[in-house]
């Protein structure tokens, strides 16, 4: 059973993220970005960010199951969903959104998948939670909440309405 992070209001965090993201994109002169959410939790966060930022390009969604690095160990995730990227990736400024950044393997897989659609001008990574303990040299540009969790603990976003962060032990 999950334990709700009671002091945390996910909506508030996403509000703050939206503000920071707008500033970051402006500072780097990255206009009219294409936002892509990672199934499933990342897509929930992306839907909210996309609306709050009023982005013009439709939201994209990717499922990284075919790009995971552990297929030969655990096989295919049977809940795999189709990826839908609504416009050309070539030359675009991408905002990649995920719920939890941990080892970095999901973000690695997502980047590889995006590049199979084309060569973007830039990718900005926004995550709801950064729980540290990276296994790959990746960082997020926008972080909603930093958590310092021991490795045996898990953090999970449940949703889509309401969005709630839960922690539990493995």
């Amino acid at each position, binding site marked *: 059973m999950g334990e709700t992070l009671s002091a945390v209001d996910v909506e508030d965090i996403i509000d703050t993220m939206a503000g920071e993201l707008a500033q970051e994109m402006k500072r780097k002169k990255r206009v009219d970005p294409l936002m892509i959410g990672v199934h499933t939790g990342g897509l929930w966060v992306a839907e909210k960010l996309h609306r709050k930022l009023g982005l013009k390009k439709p939201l994209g969604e990717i*499922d990284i*199951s*075919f*790009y*995971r690095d552990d*297929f*030969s*160990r655990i*096989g*295919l995730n*049977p809940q*795999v*969903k*189709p*990826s*839908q990227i609504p416009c050309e*990736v*070539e030359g675009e400024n991408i905002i990649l959104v995920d719920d939890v950044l941990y080892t970095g393997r999901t973000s690695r897989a997502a980047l*590889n*998948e995006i*590049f*199979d*659609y*084309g060569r973007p001008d830039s990718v900005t990574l926004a995550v709801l939670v950064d729980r540290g303990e990276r296994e790959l040299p990746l960082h997020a540009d926008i972080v909603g909440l930093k958590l310092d969790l021991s490795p045996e603990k898990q953090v999970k976003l449940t949703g889509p309405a309401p969005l709630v962060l839960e922690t539990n032990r493995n």
Partner: protein
Amino acid sequence: MSSSKQPASTSFKAPDSSRLQLDEQGRLRHFLTVESLSKDILTEIMDVAESFSSVGHQAVKKVPVLRGKTIVNLFFENSTRTRTTFDLAAKRLSADVINLNIATSATSKGESILDTIRNLEAMHADMFVVRHSDSGAAHFIANNVEPHVSVINAGDGSHAHPTQAMLDMFTIRQVKKDFSNLNVAIIGDILHSRVARSQIQALNTLGVKDIRVIAPRTLLPSDVGSLGAHAYGDLRQGLDNVDVIIMLRLQRERMGSALLPSEHEYFECFGLTEEKLAYAKPDVTVMHPGPINRGVEMDAAVADGAHSVILQQVTNGIAVRMAVMTLTLGHSKVAG
């Protein structure tokens, strides 16, 4: 290499498919027949195929999921379309593919099938895609491979052609969304067709309302009821209120035998024309596994018309084969 020659006419032992193609957890390990597979597994294949459909739209039409795997297409019987789509499916999964046309290769030099398999396993093959003119050939190979190797049946004799059936089911689901209210008619040489057998099994498992087979009496099995389908000798009656028409390719080599009248006569009675299409529902979908004998099974106007999804079937064939390859290799034991 051994001299134990496998005579061309060998019929392999009647297969016990159900246990062979599932692992201890009930997941797909080989894909030999749709017979005895649950609705859940057939649905899983279609769901995963749906996810693979987007790969064809990528600039780089590849996903790395089977990177480093070696897939061997073992075609003991000729095929262009099926082999091409298996080949393309494996390449889109980033696997390495070898195409062996055995009719002109080792077995004609006296090497037995098992010796061929052992040699390919010694080269660290991970999957065999098998087409053979003898029923049970893929089962025979699946019974004899190492634990980490998966076998996919790409058509064996008049027994089964499960990936063709599943790409047809996937196409029907795309067009009609739901199976439960459908009347589906299969037209052609039901007696000799492995495609029809697999289709009927899949349609029954997926809960289609009414399955009909339409053919001259000489091309229907004597026990047609046991197939789980209703037989019609008259095209007009058979097509009444039908949602989906699946045409089978008429094997021209059977033409002129005692089983069949002339091409002309067959077309008169069972060939699909726009006029005859009107007997079915207005939104009827027309399918054909290809290649079409235009003017024998159907008019060009029907094959290229608004009701036809024949090219969609070809595209779907790649996604469905990608799904089956990924599911079976994902569930096979990792090589030690």
